[in-house]
């Protein structure tokens, strides 16, 4: 209690900064934050996957996809390969900056960004040529929602990568762990987007 009154006297008007927080875990705040955010995102996808299996397995229509509709499995397969390869380029960017190779980081980020944008472009192109809309049966609704939700995540991932790329070209990152969180954290998110696409692709196109 004594210390409390002392503390009050000291602090009443002064405006110096807060004390340094104790780091009580080996994992840093930003990485843990994005991992928890990804848990939340996985569950959001989980809600839509739950709906998918209700519509497909519980309702159990005669054919899935319903009769006249077809999904372009090979095109989407190529698209999958494009997105998966972007996971390697973003990993290359992170490894480069860890070794202090700024040029490699810039190249890796740019390649990732372009691969992601290509994926999104092909996806939109696929939507245009599918021949059914979100209003056509529950199949159309859940197809567009699952792939669209994923597309929205690709878009968000691209935004994060843009921020990282802009800062990379302005020379903002360094080889020390705390100096390239701005590459690492969007990278973790991008890996999540990739893995989630593999699950969506396998469930919606192949199964």
């Amino acid at each position, binding site marked *: 209690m004594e210390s409390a009154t002392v503390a009050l006297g000291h602090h009443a008007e002064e405006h110096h900064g807060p*004390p340094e927080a104790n780091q*009580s875990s080996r994992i840093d705040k930003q990485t843990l934050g994005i991992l928890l955010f990804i848990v939340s995102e996985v569950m959001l996808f989980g809600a839509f996957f739950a709906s998918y299996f209700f519509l497909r397995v519980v309702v159990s229509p005669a054919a899935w996809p319903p009769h006249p509709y077809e999904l372009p499995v090979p095109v989407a397969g190529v698209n999958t390969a494009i997105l998966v390869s972007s996971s390697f380029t973003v990993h290359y960017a992170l490894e480069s900056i860890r070794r202090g190779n700024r040029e490699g980081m810039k190249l890796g980020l740019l390649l990732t960004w372009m691969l992601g944008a290509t994926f999104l472009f092909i996806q939109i192109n696929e939507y245009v040529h599918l021949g059914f809309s979100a209003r056509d049966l529950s199949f159309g609704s859940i197809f567009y929602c699952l792939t669209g939700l994923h597309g929205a995540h690709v878009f968000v991932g691209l935004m994060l990568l843009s921020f990282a790329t*802009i800062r990379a070209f302005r020379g903002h990152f360094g080889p020390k762990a705390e100096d390239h969180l701005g590459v690492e954290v969007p990278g973790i998110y991008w890996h999540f987007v990739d893995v989630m696409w593999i699950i969506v692709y396998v469930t919606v196109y192949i199964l």
Partner: protein
Amino acid sequence: MLAAIKRPGWTRGALGALAFAAFGFGLVISLRAISGLPLYQTEQTGYPHVIVPLILAPLGFLAGFGCFDYWLRWAAGAPTIPDDHSQHGAKTWKDYFRFNTDHKVIGIQYICTTFFFFFVGGLMAMLIRAELAQPGTQIVDAATYNSLFSTHAVLMIFVFVIPVFAGIANYVLPLMIGAPDMAFPRLNALSFWMLPLAGILFIGSFLAPGGAFDAGWTGYAPLSTGAPLGQSFFNLGVQFAGASSILTALNFLVTIITMRAPGMTFWRMPLLVWANLSTSLLVVAATPFIAGAQFMVLLDRLLHTNFFQFAAGGDVVSYQHIFWFYSHPAVYIMMLPGFGIVSEVISTHARKPIFGYRLMALALLGIVVLSYSVWAHHMFVSGMFSWLRVPMMLTTLLIAVPTGIKIFSWLGTLYFGKIHTYSTSMLFALAFIVTFTIGGISGVMLGMVPIDIHVTDTYFIVAHIHFVLFGGSVFTIFAGIYHWFPKMTGRMYDEKLGRVHFWGTLIGTWGTFVPMHWIGMDGMPRRVADYASQFGNWNLLISCFAFMLGAVQLIFLYNMIVSWRFGPRAPANPWRANSIEWQVSSPPPIFNFDEIPRVVGGPYEFGVPGARHAIMAGEGAEVPATEPSVVGSP
């Protein structure tokens, strides 16, 4: 004027909301014009020219208000400016009305905002009881009645009980674990400012053509997919409230895991911290499910997708599965932080260590795990798979075990304790144990399939939910508010008025909700404005108690406001508690600590000679730290 537009704040926020709303309106109208559609679509579930601006206007407000300023600067690649702490702390009352990153300010903001919604929702409860005092229709028509009970529930759940706990923990938790602030202070402020927007959307739905949403707080499809425009306000408001609570929970988890004081191992954390850790795990992993469910309803309403349209291959019952997969864990989101508060209050005022501290923490985690496996006990009569009934019954009964462990541990803590009831918080905590146990037992009854089928959609359900949410959650909220009021305001509240409030609330709660069990057993249905005249006398009695219950809350309001302004100065530690927040001044210094304290023992070592929980800066330098400053990540 120009300066006010450039500076983040209310002016820029209002302009941002207007600009974004106008953009959304223009976007919808021009897209419809290009597609050759009529410009306005006003069948009752449509209104895209209202919905899109409703999504964008809150975002515009947040952007204008300054919630994104730092991040936008970062995203654009500008060099980061060192924080000058100008957004931290409150010097005048005006600082509570701006974007503020201080967890203490945000805590107060949360508590005041949520209590505003508590009183609005309470007023709706009074209207409901006034209508139900007599059989027949007297005050509101049936449609308005439906809107009233739906809005009452939604306000109480989404913008009172869930966020008020976040508010209390926001204030207390960083102090308790010896952290200077939350892990992400700007995210914390953003989370808060989304909350009033959700509340405004819920209340604003009364202005929509067709009235406020009236499908209950559950918003079951297909009732909700065909409901008037107000239902879309609910769908959107839930998104904002949900995003707010997910981001807050994430913030709590990161704060608890990475920012504990040296020596504060997991087994030395106060139970309030444990409770918020468990709650946050639930929020992060469960809340996306209600977001998903409401997205689907909104898409069905707005874009005419077929998630819940039977004729087009949709599945109506899937709504209930997805909804309850969130909403059953949500009842623990509304209860676990209260368990934490009660543990603090009871241990402090019984002057005894918590009985079975580790089991208390593990019971919390047990509830977290089990709560994901009981959702379908809300759906015994929904026409779901019949094989799911018995497993859900068994898990429901099983989840009573960790809850029972907590009840017995509190009783064990009280046993042979020196029980002080000079604080209203202890009275509420003791009343909580009794009332919540009754509510818990009726919950076990409802877990049994045959009893549940008998009383489904009767007042027995209303009685159960109010016993656990009012007699449970709200009692713990009052206990927490009274307990930390001296810490938060630096003033003592009026104990006499606190007692009047307590006894009025206790008698009002029991008088209101106990008879509901009986009329529910006799078959009075819930969610109807009129009822069979044989229930008239009971309902009149219930309404009288309910009005008393409402009236005594005004005493609480008066006590809080007047004591905050004129109460006697509070000492740093009026309850002689051990945890760290009581070792700093009341109210705490602007940056919480000069130096981070060192934790050397458990938080509840009352009556143990020489036991210390924490050593503050500038005292006890001779005591060596017994723990390494970095402990393993969990």
